[in-house]
């Protein structure tokens, strides 16, 4: 294991985090919020010292960076980033308990949007901004950002691919263009472009600038931290609709946007995952609208709420415009099932990813076919291209890990003695990076009532969900650390 190289990358990450904190610090200075200014300055100094130490260790790193290092770096980087990122909350005593502060920032970076705060509006602007900005950074991935801006070593080394693969969601991650730096830049420019567009649309609708920035960040990263206690419920229908549309847009695989920019429209719209995504959205909205029609005055209002809630769960954002916990059982069940679905691979959304379902179901269909025709050789095809058997095996393994983690953490969280619906939906909502669940963790409630153990478990869940399990899992694997 190339520890020094890992430390070097960690040093870069911490340096980047300090830079990211500057806007929040400026807001605090502007608002004369001395308490928070001091908290940020303290955090930046501590982070700077840590980054300096890491840099000293990693200064003379040798070459050699393989899949193992890529996974471990990604896992460690996210944990380290979260620990330092939560310090402003802790030092300013906005969130007095360390585990709570950690929960909040992990929920931010992993774009979950689960909060332990009962009164969000009491937070100072700078901390609100930092909380929402963590969504934006976490959405596309901080390591991908690093790849875009900093030359980590020789220009022609392929190891950066391991980082892209470990941090980006989806069963088969690849580059868009030969150079990693350019790939990362393209992804970030698309991301920035869409975010700015969202922000402008919100501004036009009359949202105050800071709230618009925070909401745009939350939407872009598919995070879901609101700046109001009732999330987006008190905003105008226009603002809610804008957010609905952008939540759906950020749940789409970003390489689709690249293909569109390359004017290969046919390729983009014939993508199987995109079609499934749009299909599920359409059907779910339709069924839920009809189901909740009696609760609202008029079809359009019902449609707006249905679309927003489907968008928030499907893209794993986690905003809310209404308390869907009060909806009929059918609608709630649909939302619960959608929680497992997740967005498209290569988007900023979390969850299991539709691409994996496509692979699993096509593989299942092949297995059924093969049991009827044992000698026939068949390939699983996605977008007319035969899928490598290795990807199918990995996807199967991923499903097992996914289910096992849900069961294990469900069991641990049950110790707290809440209802099964609360516990299960809390685990599912954190693991899939959605945010709100049902019952006691519904849209109007929060996660503060859980015990420290449960919160730690859910922190692990959020990280594992965002990084797609393996980067976190390898940190706990003996084979990673033991020298053979």
């Amino acid at each position, binding site marked *: 294991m190339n520890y020094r190289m890992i430390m070097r990358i960690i040093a870069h990450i911490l340096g980047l985090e300090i830079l990211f904190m500057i806007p929040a610090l400026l807001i605090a200075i502007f608002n004369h919020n001395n308490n928070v200014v001091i908290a940020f300055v303290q955090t930046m100094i501590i982070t700077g010292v840590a980054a300096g130490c890491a840099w000293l260790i990693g200064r003379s790193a040798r070459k050699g960076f*393989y*899949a193992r290092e890529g996974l471990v770096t990604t896992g460690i980087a996210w944990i380290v980033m979260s620990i330092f990122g939560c310090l402003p909350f802790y030092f300013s005593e906005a969130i007095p308990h360390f585990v709570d502060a950690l929960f909040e920032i992990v929920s931010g970076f992993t774009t979950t949007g689960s909060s332990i705060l009962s009164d969000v509006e009491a937070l100072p602007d700078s901390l609100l901004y930092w909380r929402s900005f963590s969504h934006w950074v976490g959405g596309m991935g901080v390591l991908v950002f690093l790849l875009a801006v900093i030359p980590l070593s*020789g*220009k*022609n*080394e*392929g*190891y*950066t*691919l*391991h980082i892209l693969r470990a941090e980006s969601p989806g069963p088969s991650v*690849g*580059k868009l*263009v*030969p*150079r*990693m730096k*350019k790939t990362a830049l393209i992804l970030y420019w698309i991301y920035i472009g869409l975010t700015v567009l969202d922000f402008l649309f919100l501004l036009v609708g009359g949202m105050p600038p800071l709230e618009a920035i925070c909401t745009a960040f939350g939407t872009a990263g598919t995070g879901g931290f609101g700046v109001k206690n009732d999330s987006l419920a008190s905003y105008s229908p226009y603002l809610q609709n804008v957010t609905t549309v952008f939540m759906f847009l950020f749940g789409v695989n970003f390489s689709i946007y690249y293909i569109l920019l390359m004017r290969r429209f046919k390729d983009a719209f014939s993508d199987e995952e995109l079609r499934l995504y749009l299909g599920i959205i359409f059907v779910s909205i339709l069924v839920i609208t009809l189901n909740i029609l009696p609760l609202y005055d008029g079809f359009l209002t019902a449609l707006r709420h249905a679309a927003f809630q489907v968008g928030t769960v499907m893209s794993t954002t986690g905003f809310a415009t209404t308390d869907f916990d009060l909806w009929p059982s059918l609608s709630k069940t649909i939302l619960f099932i959608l929680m497992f679905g997740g967005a498209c691979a290569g988007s900023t959304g979390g969850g299991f990813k539709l691409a994996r379902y496509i692979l699993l179901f096509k593989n299942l269909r092949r297995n059924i076919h093969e049991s009827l025709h044992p000698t026939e050789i068949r390939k699983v095809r996605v977008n007319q291209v035969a899928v*490598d058997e290795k990807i199918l095996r990995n996807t199967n393994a991923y499903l097992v890990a996914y289910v096992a983690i849900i069961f294990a953490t469900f069991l641990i969280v049950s110790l707290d003695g809440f209802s099964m619906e609360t516990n299960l939906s809390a685990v599912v909502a954190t693991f899939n990076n959605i945010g709100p669940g049902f019952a006691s963790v519904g849209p109007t409630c929060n996660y503060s009532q859980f015990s420290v153990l449960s919160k730690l478990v859910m922190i692990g869940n959020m990280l594992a969900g965002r990084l797609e399990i393996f980067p976190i899992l390898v940190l706990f694997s003996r084979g990673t650390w033991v020298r053979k």
Partner: protein
Amino acid sequence: MKILVAGGGKVGEVLVDKLGNEGHEITLIDSDPYVLEHIMEQYDVITVHGNAASMDTLEQAGVDESDLLIAATDADEVNMLSCMTAHGLNPEIHTIGRIRDPEYRQQAYRMRDLFGLNLVINPEQEAAIEIGRLLKYPGFLNIETFAKGSAEIVSLRIKKDSQLVNVPLKKLDSIIKCKVLVCAVVRDGVCVIPDGNFVVKENDLIYVTASADQLSTLLKNLGIIAREVKHVLIAGGGKISYYLALELEKIGMHVSIIESDPERCSLLAASLPNATIIEGDASSQNFLDSEGIERFDGMVTLTGLDELNIVISLYANEKNIPQIVTKLSHAENNRMLDSLPIGSVISPKELSCNSIIRYVRAMQNKQGAAITVHRIADGQGEAIEFIIDEKDLHVGEPLKDIRTKKDALIVSITHGNKTEIASGDSSYQVGDNVVVVSNGKATIQNFNDIFVD
């Protein structure tokens, strides 16, 4: 530039490495997904899985916006078809095809336009030409030519009884009585760029720059008696042997080839009427003795096995054959062999990589990039040739007033037909060919990269 490389074998991998380091955007095409995976993990490239000669694959790889296709798969036919198809899809594209089969040699040259080939690379033939040059100038381990043949860099191993042992380089001129410059020294496997106080030790491998007409003076004054090579024994009857025999017969040497496969023997006998073809096992000492190995003055080992080539060369050395050339397929940075007396080492794959890289740099030459590059000292060092243009710094200033990086050295300046070995008083003008030697620690793509800024 955007470059497509077809075939991820040894040559493909070296090209991806070198060209990628020079900042080109590379797409690799191969039909084996595991090869692609392996290369993608090591280098910053994108890969396309498929047959490099198929239109779909080429289109997927973005042939319409690429500047160059290098077809280096192991099948000649695929390479030719690939270049043809690429040209059909994008008439602007440059193509380099690796064609190895002697039977295709003629048509690959004559029908270049038809196949859309801008450059034909034949590793075996290039190796044969290189070996031929080495045999022509016996005494040197390696010869690299610059400025259309008017400047050369040769390498010599310092033996125990050499008069250069323990001599500082600034006193070199008085011993060998002609103007040369030692531009690189490999000691214990490490390549250094020496200055005037550097003291030569036994067993050093020195690289000397000299103008072409002074090579024989150099040899004579160093006390190396260069016996002209007349009779060459070649172990192994592969493609290189065939090309080499043609090459050597042209300059009047007599060639004997030992080959164990009877069919191959009769094929060689049919196509090489002037050569002596011997059927037998070149690895057997008895057999070599019975063929009178000591009466040859040149030995070239070209069997398919590197190990065997080394062993035969060692035996030839013991039999005091003055000029030995050993072919190694896996010679990259092989410092283990540095101390073995196996004569000059030739690696066909490395040679073709160098030619391709040279071509790529020439394509870029408008931006002041190097026109030829030779890798020396087992690939640790590079000798690079530039043409000076208006943008280059320090034109007309004496070299002693210019500070260059300590890893780089200007070794020769060619002005018109006159080649001057660089000294403190030399200077270069716009339009001159300048050769720079570096030990590879700094990437030098542009002439101005050699200066301390």
